């Protein structure tokens, strides 16, 4: 499986993402600059964390208009797996690929530490390797992760089981309904504030993020490789 790690000016988790795919999973992966026009050769798209365009105006607001976004929209339509982590999630929200928006953390502080998450939906291409209700430890690192959407959208998210991860035990940022990660209706675009790519080796404190990437690869193999 061949992944693209999209690099915006100000991305800073691109190398972690690349490392997770290449060294931990042994999959093919390439960095793709934000002005690329075509992503046809890739099977999966990863939008890493960071501070694209300095988070000017709003997090993700300017990145959302980069050239590569048109290709990302196309990939989303084609049903390719698209994962946005942290700033990548914020970009997906700004682009309208996922519903809702991010507010400043209710503490107004930038929070950088491991948190516990509950896997709410393990019937997605991103979470099939987890147990339903599994509690995992993944680090967060953000100042704007306080998810918000209107009531109508929230009801839809709940009814369609689009809330994939919730914060467990404590809500670090004030996020609505303890939401840590959501998926689109079609089920191929996942946005999450916690960083699974920073939890792929016990040496880093947790390897709980690994199953997320393994789920994507398993999904793809089953769909595309004969005798997988």
């Amino acid at each position, binding site marked *: 499986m061949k992944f693209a790690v999209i690099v915006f000016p100000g991305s800073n988790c691109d190398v972690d993402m690349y490392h997770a795919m290449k060294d931990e999973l042994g999959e093919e992966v390439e960095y793709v600059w934000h002005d690329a026009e075509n992503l046809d050769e890739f099977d999966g798209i990863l939008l890493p964390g960071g501070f694209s365009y300095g988070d000017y105006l*709003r997090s993700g*607001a300017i990145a959302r208009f980069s050239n590569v976004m048109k290709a990302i929209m196309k990939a989303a339509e084609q049903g390719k797996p698209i994962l946005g982590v942290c700033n990548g999630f914020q970009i997906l929200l*700004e682009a309208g690929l996922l519903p809702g*928006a991010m*507010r*400043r953390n*209710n503490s107004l502080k930038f929070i950088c530490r491991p948190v516990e998450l509950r896997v709410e939906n393990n019937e997605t291409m991103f979470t099939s390797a987890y147990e339903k209700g599994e509690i995992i430890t993944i680090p967060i690192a953000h100042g704007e992760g306080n998810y*918000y959407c*209107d009531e109508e959208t929230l009801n839809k998210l709940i009814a369609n089981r689009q809330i994939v991860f919730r914060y467990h035990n404590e809500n670090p940022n004030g996020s609505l309904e303890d939401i840590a990660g959501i998926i689109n209706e079609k089920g191929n675009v996942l946005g999450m504030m916690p960083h699974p790519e920073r939890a792929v080796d016990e040496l880093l404190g947790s390897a709980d993020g690994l199953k997320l990437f393994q789920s994507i690869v398993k999904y793809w193999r089953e769909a595309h490789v004969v005798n997988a």
Partner: protein
Amino acid sequence: MYKVKVYVTLRESVLDPQGTAVKGALHSLSYHEVQDVRIGKFMELTIEKSERNIDELVREMCEKLLANTVIEDYRYEIEEVVTQ
């Protein structure tokens, strides 16, 4: 030429954590009269005249980029300036 002032604020229904913190600070300075503080953004745009209707143009910019209408409201004032 136009000078356009754009004000972007969080929607009434959306809790403003910055505003709440500033309100607390004002209260600790004994300004107990303060009921609420909402923090927003102010942008000043200088826009050249074109065949586009200026009102329509600014609204489009607000909707597309300057405000995120999921959580923010915007308003603007347009002033025509004569350049020498």
